């Protein structure tokens, strides 16, 4: 080995160590952020659940004192109970999100996890007549991920696509390897649907906490923010855009190839 080769090898090793250090720092920062959110969520939960409990007891009491056979009274009481349930669900979902456990990283095959996730939503895909096409490039490197959390991301994204196309449609899933600008090998996962797409204003806020366009259907808007948080925890990237040449949404996730 020449001196130059030896130097290149050392530089490569140093770069790898710097990368690992950066990743570890990012994960620590993310864990600290989640800890703060968790503490906030528990405080918020206590402060909101107690008033909800008082209101629910009050509504139950009134139910025994008013004429429930009167349709306007009956429906008013039911609306109030539904609102209490909805507010309680928001808090419950926020608590679940905030108590997200740290990553359990292992080397894994993203194609296999994608197939498993598709299997988990197969019933919904079939029920809504969604056609799936898969294009998995052979020889794509393994990725260093928390398999359960990435499966959670994929299931969430597939179900969002199903909800966007309740009368049927197509989802195309593509996995390939790409090189970053710095020349590193990355794994790219693309999910395309042919639904109506997302209004441009909503696209900007799609990953925000509590942003949802489906509130009337009981959705509270933690799905995509959870997805983004999980991808961030992996040091990856996620992009959501309307397709330029066709109807529908394209989601692109980039993950680092595993060591």
């Amino acid at each position: 080995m020449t001196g130059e080769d030896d130097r290149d090898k050392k530089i490569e090793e140093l770069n790898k160590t710097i990368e690992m250090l950066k990743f570890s720092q990012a994960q620590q920062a993310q864990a600290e952020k989640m800890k703060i959110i968790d503490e906030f969520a528990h405080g918020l939960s206590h402060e909101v659940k107690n008033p909800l409990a008082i209101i629910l007891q009050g509504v139950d009491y009134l139910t025994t004192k008013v004429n429930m056979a009167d349709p306007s009274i009956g429906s008013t009481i039911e609306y109030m109970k539904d609102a209490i349930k909805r507010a309680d669900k928001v808090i419950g979902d926020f608590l679940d999100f905030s108590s997200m456990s740290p990553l359990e990283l292992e080397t894994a095959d993203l194609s296999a996890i994608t197939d498993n996730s598709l299997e988990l939503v197969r019933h919904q895909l079939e029920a809504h007549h969604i056609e799936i096409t898969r294009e998995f490039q052979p020889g794509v490197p393994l990725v260093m991920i928390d398999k359960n959390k990435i499966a959670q991301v994929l299931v969430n994204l597939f179900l969002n696509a199903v909800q966007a196309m309740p009368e049927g449609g197509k989802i195309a899933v593509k996995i390939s390897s790409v090189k970053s600008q710095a020349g590193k090998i990355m794994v790219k996962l693309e999910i395309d649907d042919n639904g109506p797409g997302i209004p441009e204003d909503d696209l900007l806020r799609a990953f925000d906490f509590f942003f949802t366009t489906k509130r009337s259907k009981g959705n509270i808007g933690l799905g995509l923010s959870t997805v983004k948080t999980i991808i961030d925890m992996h040091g990856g990237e996620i992009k959501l855009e309307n397709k330029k040449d066709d109807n529908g949404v394209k989601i692109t996730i980039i993950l680092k190839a595993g060591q």
Partner: protein
Amino acid sequence: MAKRTVLIIDDEISFAEMVKLNLEDTDDYEVRTEYKGADGVKAALEFAPDLILLDIMLPDKDGFDVLKDLKENDQTKAIPVIMLTALKSDPVKFKAATLSAEEFMVKPVTVRMLVEKIEEVLDRRIVEKMKKENNS
């Protein structure tokens, strides 16, 4: 049939009073409320209720300390305790179970859910007592 007696220890005064109102409205319960942990333990000794509904976050001592005091005292250790709290987490639930709470409920709860749980706990206690008597 004699009314069943319940002690509520909760610093959310409106909640404690609403639960008292709802339970007493059924004519099946006599309810006493306390808003501090120490007062709750004292009331448990004086009132000797059939069941205690206990919150966790109390101003003077937390609900777990109250639970520990109740379960360590010969006069109150047999009184079933339902932890009724706004705190929803597995560690909290686990701690309540290890300190011998009979049940754990997360607010908000409907009156029906609460009454069903109280009846379930009290009925279970009666069956356990009968079994014990038959064995002795």
